[in-house]
């Protein structure tokens, strides 16, 4: 994953000028953030995250940088983000009574981050069902992730369903 921090003029069409070379050299765009509140001298900071095919990453990135310079788009910083994987799981049981924040923090300590939590309840004393959308590191395999989840679920008597 490549994170590009640039400044573009606050004029119509300049965002397209930023995206065009990335798309032209095979970039798969994950997200774009504009910071209109930090506009200075009519230039807006923009962060764009994208992925390039590994084999041609260096060449493609050089070409992208060259074209952006030709378009007068200032590149402030380039960083290589850590790849993350996503998974959805369901926990059934007394998820809140067994301290859901503790569950989230323990997962975070293993670099497993809960991005989203959605719950359904019936009665207070009955079990709840909680859907978690989880992000985990590229280098962690699914078995390792499942083992971490299982450890907590066994201890807290929660029923786990993974994808």
């Amino acid at each position: 994953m490549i994170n590009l921090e640039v400044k573009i003029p606050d004029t119509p069409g300049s965002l397209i000028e930023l995206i065009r070379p990335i798309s032209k050299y095979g970039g798969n765009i994950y997200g774009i953030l504009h910071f209109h509140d930090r506009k200075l001298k009519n230039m807006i900071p923009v962060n764009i995250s994208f992925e390039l095919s590994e084999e041609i990453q260096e060449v493609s990135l050089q070409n992208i940088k060259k074209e952006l310079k030709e378009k007068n788009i200032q590149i402030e910083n380039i960083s290589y983000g850590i790849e993350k994987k996503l998974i959805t799981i369901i926990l059934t049981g007394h998820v809140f009574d067994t301290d859901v924040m503790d569950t989230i923090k323990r997962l975070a300590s293993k670099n497993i981050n809960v991005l989203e939590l959605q719950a359904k309840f019936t009665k207070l004393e009955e079990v709840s069902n909680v859907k978690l959308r989880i992000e985990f590191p590229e280098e962690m395999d699914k078995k390792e992730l499942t083992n971490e989840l299982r450890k907590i679920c066994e201890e807290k008597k929660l029923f786990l369903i993974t994808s």
Partner: protein
Amino acid sequence: MMNVKICLIGKGIVGSSLLQLLNEKKQLFKQKFNLKITVNSIFESDGALIKDKGIDLKEILDVSDDFRNLPYWRRDVKAIDLISELDIDICIETTPTNPKTGEPGLSHIIEALNNHIDVISSNKGPFYLEYKKIKNLAEQNNCFVKYEATVASCVPSLSIKEDLIGNEILSIKAILNGTSNFILSRMTAEGVDFPLALKEAQELGYAESDPTLDIDGYDAAGKLVILANELLGWSKNIKDVKVEGISKITPHAIELVKPDGFVIKPLAIAENNELSVEPRLIDKNSPLNISGNLNVVELETKYAGPIILMGRGAGGFEAASAIINDLIDITRKKGYSP
């Protein structure tokens, strides 16, 4: 024409369906396969029908449950005592599975193989408990042992191995228990809770009055062991399977994952030398997302990606047709039929 002499052990739903198919297919066996199939003994738990020159199948089918009144019914004789004495080429074992011991089927199979008799079985217990022992014994005695009906019934999930000989099967994902799949399908489609869906399955005859083996995952675990041993060349038994049932799944859990395009299915998985049966979230567009009481087997292959087999995984005629396939296969391999 080759006369193949058969002993049938177990005249329940599968055994009776088999007798009907053998009777119906008499001409086909003769014309297409150059075979005469002679059933010379049919064993039940309390006795046996024995006729050296062959039992008239039509007569058996006509008398239905009154077969014990036939003159050649011998009360209190046991298959285990007579297998070695009878003139049999193939022993067909269709007794019900005892999940803990595999008996009496296991002893019948061992006795037949020890007497150099080929075996066909629809009884899975012996195979998920003592797979290696049975296979070794068959090899030592130069016998065939076939058991297609033990996994997904008529779906050719075991014999496909021979059709994929030029490929390599890497892993297996499957739904092998129709009852669990039916229950989860009803919970997904109608939003009913587990007890109600189970009751419905029982009323429709898809679930036993004691449904434990189905809903707790042990039935699927046994079938998974056989599938993995056969297709992946493993030597596992049922104790090697991590099993989780479906009884804790709630309609809310199903509802929560719907917007993300997931459904919950009772999956049996063999990959990375590990076996598990557990509910899993799968993409609603996955070929594994089958509804009702069907079975499905997805084989991940090295040279062709996934290969999917699907069909009815239970029923008398379904299992009986799988037994007939095994029967023809044995006679072909022995050079009796083309």
